[in-house]
């Protein structure tokens, strides 16, 4: 069997990639259109719809909320996820296997069920403020990514180095920060980025945890699409895509993108 796939297969793959790329190109085109309705190819180039994003206060507010939640949620997930990932690798023998599975649960159960459960028990049941409930929800949905990505980089870390440092008199906590953490830096950065993007784009959990005055950008986009069909949504989408590209460029610079495919 020759190494080159059959021409029909190559043609199918090319069509699949076309199918993946064309809709995104169309969104960008529609965002740049000068018309008051959504159209493609754009008729007259303009950035007015990008200005319109910031003219609508709901978009301004939700962009800020989304960034706050994504940043805080990711930081908390790292804060509790890094020690957990470390423990899972360092004490692999001592800790039961199901503990690793436990941290994957948030992506195993349907997100929309999780969002509803949080609404029922936290906001309605315990009177937790919406922002706090939103933060808790986002922290949990990104936790699996944090634990898994950092575990993967810890798996290739030789713990003998840590033991050497400790037996030479370095305090365990100091050893962690000066020896272990710098060695898994790439994993921490990747985990941060994956978690941040996941949180920023989340719909299913946020859907239930929004209320008067508090909403996230994707939920606001959904609400806007159902009322107005103008290019503003296309330009917000482009804004989100640019954010993703920027973040991916950082990953590419630091780790190489194939890292994300693992």
């Amino acid at each position, binding site marked *: *069997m020759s190494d080159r*796939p059959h021409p029909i*297969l*190559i043609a*199918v*793959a090319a069509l699949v990639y076309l199918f*993946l*790329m064309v*809709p*995104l190109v*169309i*969104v960008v085109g529609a965002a740049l259109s000068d018309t008051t*309705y959504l159209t*493609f190819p754009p008729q007259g180039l303009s950035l007015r719809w990008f200005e319109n994003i910031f003219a609508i206060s709901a978009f301004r507010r939700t962009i800020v909320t989304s960034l706050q939640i994504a940043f805080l949620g990711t930081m908390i997930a790292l804060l*509790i*996820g890094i*020690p*957990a990932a470390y*423990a899972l690798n360092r004490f692999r023998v*001592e*800790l039961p296997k199901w*503990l690793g599975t*436990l*941290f994957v*649960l*948030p992506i*195993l*159960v*349907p*997100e*929309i*069920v*999780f969002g*509803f*459960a*949080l*609404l*029922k*028990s936290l906001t309605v049941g315990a009177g937790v403020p919406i922002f706090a409930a939103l933060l808790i929800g986002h*922290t*949990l949905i990104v936790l699996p990514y944090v634990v898994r990505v950092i575990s993967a980089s810890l798996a290739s870390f030789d713990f003998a180095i840590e033991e050497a440092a*400790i037996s030479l008199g370095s305090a*365990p906590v100091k050893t962690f920060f000066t020896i272990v953490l710098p060695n898994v830096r790439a994993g921490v950065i990747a985990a941060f980025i994956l978690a941040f993007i996941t949180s*920023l*784009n989340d*719909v*299913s959990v946020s*859907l239930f945890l929004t209320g008067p005055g508090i909403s996230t950008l*994707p939920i606001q986009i959904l609400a806007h*699409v159902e009322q107005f069909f103008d290019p503003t*949504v*296309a330009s917000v989408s482009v804004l*989100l*895509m640019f954010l*993703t590209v920027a973040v*991916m460029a950082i990953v590419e610079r630091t780790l190489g*993108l*194939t890292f*994300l*495919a693992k």
Partner: protein
Amino acid sequence: MTSRRFWCRDGATGWALSAPATLAVLCFLIVPIGAVIAGTFMDPRGAFAPYISYFNSGFRTTVLFRTLQISAFTTIISLIFGFMTAYVVSRAPAKLKSLLIVAAVFPLLTGVVVRAFAWLIILGRNGILNQTLLALGIVNEPLEMLYTQGAVIVGMVYLFVPLMVLSLVGVLENIPKDVLQASSSLGASPMATFRQVLLPLAVPGLIVGAVLVFTGSFTAYATPQLLGGERQTVLATLLQQRAMVSFDWVGASTIATIMTAITISIVLAMSHIARRINPMAT
């Protein structure tokens, strides 16, 4: 001495370090979802009353079957196209391969709302597809493509094909090239090698991909909401309506329990099958 005790291989330190994350999952995920599920069995009308009334409603049973149908179609289409694409990607020269992987990762990192919205522009009554068809004279009046099952399936395939491609590229790369070369040097045609060697070796990966896509499309919200609307209500959109519009907590909890039960049974059943087929797979 203290430092020595600290890194002694005792589980206590491990438990302590993983405690915050464990507690978070326990308190904010397991307990709330457990409460939702338990609540449906404590109905004053009887233990299974919410389920009996769910399945007695023709509309709600239709929604369940529609959701299963959409997920099944999405999975099959994604499997076929994802496998062919992944095969080509896995055989591509290194430079092109990493470019193709990036091109598959990018849509995956773009939000689901943005990706569903793109299809709204394409499939709408005055959308690009209708304009093109009208201009070419293929149709005389715009087709109603939005709010059909087809629209939801296209949107879902668009969501999940990259996921399928990425998970299969890894699997196909792990199949040793020698095995395929052996097959062809022993006289098998490319088609026979594909059917009898490559495909069976890829089955565990295909199962994992199928589970990811099926459970993902079974629980997706934004795509069926935007492209299917009320005419194509699925479990996820029905759950949202019951909870946020009708404030029917029991109804919403029942749907949530059905979704969780189906998702978890599929994951467990398929990982069991994958293990039976290939003892090396985890």
